[in-house]
């Protein structure tokens, strides 16, 4: 446990080195040859994903840097998807960013730094490392949101994101300091051991610290009542950055929630469960109901994200029943499956938005999708799949995400404690997904039932066409054969908890 074990952090090291290299190489490239940077970034991401895959194949829990850092199957799965998602985002961004003067070296370098922060967060085994990763990710994202500095909306979004994000980081840091003060350690495993053994200075400080930690996490997830930044940032940020915010960092927040709440604060489960339950219900209600009123697609998706995160929170608090951790792996693997499928679906959805955008035209209103079926039946079909997946209608992968969450939720109730509460929560959750179905259906309606207002041809690079098609079809294929991804999440979670 006390060794360096650099191998365990190989993906991060490779990514960091590659990022610096790209930063330097890019200085010697002019705008015509920016594709070299693009290609190098994609290669770096693929190599990182492959390294994560290799570590995943070892199926072991490895500590590095004297216990500051941990590489377990859950981390490897999440990192692999985060790297792939980031690569996909770069592919989608190509045309959009080029048209808007964002296709410069800093776009790539900042994106890679976001991923590095995400990976550090995922593997953090120490409160300070959690914070380190979080700040690396967040600072790079603030800069990315503001990358179009002449765009008033983007600058405003960056400002909001920065102020509220800094506040959230402050919350987390404050909570961490309280935990440190109460339990005398920053190491997550030791934290749990100290709390179980009763070696705490003040239980009040511990619980208060947990409150701040949960609030900080809720900020980062965008759960109600800490969601106010999310619609503005999703709306205001350039679409590639929006999709970046909606994909890899969500996986990372899931990971640090797991690290801190389950690995570090499991003995306090009774306290944080109630908070998560409230956050979940509030997010489901506010997110889904507010989304109905939106006419801007990006804003609608932002509110729908709030609702989706509420659904994921339902699984996260179902993991511990009356102090019994039997169901923990089941519930958290459900949440993990949920967040991964959410990232896949969100990528595709914003991919469509970027596909339809042109020079001087953002295509971010729902009405801009009018008659897409006439203009391009294939991409209309892809968007249809993505929308039904977000709505949780089988046979798309979004259905299984909702199913396993419900299964985890009812599983916690069936264990004996509060059975009827779990059932009512499940009923509320499904009724709100009915509300959600309305606004997702509206997008399908606009694409299929309305006549096109805009008949200009859709132009996109071939690799974008392929990536977007694969992305869309994967939602359907994973819906017909969901067993492999489900098993991957379940095994990773069992192994991570068991080790």
């Amino acid at each position: 446990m006390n060794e360096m074990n650099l191998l365990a952090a190989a993906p991060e090291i490779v990514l960091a080195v590659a990022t610096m290299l790209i930063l330097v190489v890019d200085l010697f490239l002019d705008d015509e040859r920016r594709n070299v940077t693009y290609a190098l970034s994609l290669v770096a991401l693929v190599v990182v994903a492959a390294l994560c895959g290799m570590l995943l194949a070892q199926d072991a829990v490895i500590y590095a840097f004297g216990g500051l850092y941990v590489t377990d199957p859950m981390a490897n799965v999440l990192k692999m998807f985060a790297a792939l998602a980031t690569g996909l985002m770069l592919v989608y961004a190509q045309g959009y960013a080029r048209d808007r003067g964002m296709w410069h070296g800093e776009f790539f370098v900042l994106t890679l730094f976001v991923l590095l922060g995400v990976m550090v967060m995922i593997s953090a085994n120490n409160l300070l490392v959690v914070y380190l990763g979080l700040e690396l990710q967040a600072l790079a994202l603030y800069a990315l949101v503001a990358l179009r500095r002449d765009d008033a909306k983007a600058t405003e979004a960056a400002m909001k994101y920065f102020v509220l994000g800094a506040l959230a980081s402050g919350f987390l840091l404050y909570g961490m300091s309280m935990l440190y003060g109460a339990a005398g350690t920053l190491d997550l495993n030791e934290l749990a051991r100290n709390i179980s053994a009763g070696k705490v200075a003040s239980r009040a400080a511990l619980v208060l610290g947990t409150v701040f930690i949960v609030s900080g996490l809720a900020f980062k997830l965008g759960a109600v009542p800490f969601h106010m930044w999310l619609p503005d940032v999703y709306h205001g940020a350039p679409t590639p950055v929006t999709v970046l915010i909606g994909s890899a960092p969500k996986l990372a927040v899931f990971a640090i929630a797991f690290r801190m709440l389950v690995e570090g604060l499991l003995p306090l489960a009774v306290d944080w469960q109630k908070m998560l339950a409230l956050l979940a219900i509030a997010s489901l209600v506010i997110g889904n109901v507010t989304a109905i009123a939106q006419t801007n697609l990006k804003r609608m998706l932002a509110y729908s994200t709030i609702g989706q995160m509420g659904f994921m929170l339902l699984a996260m608090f179902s993991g511990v029943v009356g102090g019994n951790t039997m169901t923990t792996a089941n519930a958290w693997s459900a949440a993990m499956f949920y967040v991964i499928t959410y990232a896949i679906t969100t990528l595709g959805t914003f991919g469509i938005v970027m596909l339809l955008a042109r020079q001087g035209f953002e295509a971010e209103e729902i009405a801009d999708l009018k008659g897409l079926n006439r203009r391009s039946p294939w991409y209309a079909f892809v968007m249809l799949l993505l929308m039904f997946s977000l709505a949780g209608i089988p046979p798309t992968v979004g259905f299984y995400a909702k199913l396993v969450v419900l299964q985890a939720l009812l599983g916690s109730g069936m264990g004996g404690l509060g059975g009827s509460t779990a059932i009512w929560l499940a009923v509320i959750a499904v009724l709100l997904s009915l509300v959600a179905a309305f606004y997702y259906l509206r997008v399908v309606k606009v694409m299929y039932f309305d006549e096109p207002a805009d008949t200009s041809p859709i132009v996109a690079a071939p690799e974008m066409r392929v990536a977007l098609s694969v992305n869309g079809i994967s939602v359907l294929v994973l819906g017909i054969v969901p067993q492999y991804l489900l098993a991957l999440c379940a095994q990773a979670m069992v192994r991570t908890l068991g080790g």
Partner: protein
Amino acid sequence: MQNTLPWLSLAIWLPIGFGVLILGAGRDRNANVVRTVALVGSLLGLLVTLPLYTGFDAAQAGLQFVEKEMWIERLNAHYHLGIDGLSVWFVILTAFITVIVVIAGWEVIESRVAQYYAAFLILSGLMIGVFTAADGLLFYIFFEATLIPMYIIIGVWGGANRVYAAFKFFLYTLAGSLLMLVALVYLYYAAGGSFDLAAWREVRIPLTAQVLLFLAFFAAFSVKVPMWPVHTWLPDAHVEAPTGGSVVLAAIMLKLGAYGFLRFSLPITPDAAHELAWFIIAISLVAVVYIGFVALVQTDMKKLVAYSSIAHMGFVTLGFFIFNRIGVEGAIVQMISHGFVSGAMFLCIGVMYDRMHSRNIADYGGVVNTMPRFAAFMMLFAMANCGLPGTSGFVGEFYVILGAVKYNFWIGMAAATTLILGAAYSLWMYKRVIFGEVGNPHVAELTDIGAREFLILALLAGAVLWMGVYPKPFTDLMGASVAELLQHVGQSKIPLAR
């Protein structure tokens, strides 16, 4: 029982495969190729359901043609298919109606032909999936997935108010099925982590939980049937849907709900079913009597047939919840018969609509003078719709009324009013549309049905008469399974006191 080929999988995936093929490769400029491929696909789909009839062992009550593969290990869900006497006819009916719909849309649908046919073929496979699923999760997935193609069919090829109708259809049915999803997950745990329908039949559940489960199932299936008072989506959907959509909706999709009662509500929560039977019987009678009157005053032909569908489906639910063999068998026969008759009625209206672009009864009159052959067919279907002996409509209604009288004379009496009401609304509409003087110059210009229309109407007429004159093949196949179902319904599933 020869089990050489996975016939059920073929019946599901063959139409879906053809649908995907058309969707992927079909272009509107070679619409005729698309139509031909769709026809071949639907005919092959029908062909692979024939071994289900010839190879079916009527003496056996359990599942036949079983296919079982592990599917989602984490949830212990299986790809588990099988048919018994309750479902065998619906599989064949679905494949048959799909052929009819494909032919019916031949010259009528001219925009986005490939997508139209693809939607129907995929829908057909999904509906067969619902009827053959022996795993709760698989059932749910097929059940829900049918919403997507139907939503598109109504919304893209529908009438003026199609968007409203499509949304109403989707959200109404989704509302019900989401509650069922919670019930399914509950049962999954109650059965010790299994989605197997056979295992669910053996689970013992306390009465309160049974009632809640029953209500969740009721939410899903009553909307789909649809039962009064959650029927209001159906007239809208029917009126706005294109002819093919109306036919599939009336002939098969409504049966999914009724079939759900047979598979879930009755055998899994029998005590709750007995407890709440009065309620179901009451609203079924409301559907039969009240909706019958509502149908009488309609001025739109499609709406009239839609309301008559609700009244007929009221008969079906009534038959289920009087818990005797003749009632249940009658209800199932009624479901099949209604598939033929209501499908035929919508096709007849479609035939007239294609020529006149109006569904208003008042716009017609004296059609018999210009379309005599068509008038003869429609006569037969209108008679079947009101339950004339010798047509399929009679058999089911007669059985259900017999069963109802056996259960309680007054219920039987109330149900029997349908014979008057059904005759009133069907024949009165027929009279106003077909008979009399030629109402207006448009009617005078009508041309009689062509070979394509003749073919589909003749096929359906044959089915209606066959079932009316000789229903034995239908009742024979379902006998053993109905007896077994009633045996399950008769047993209490409340946990034994320790």
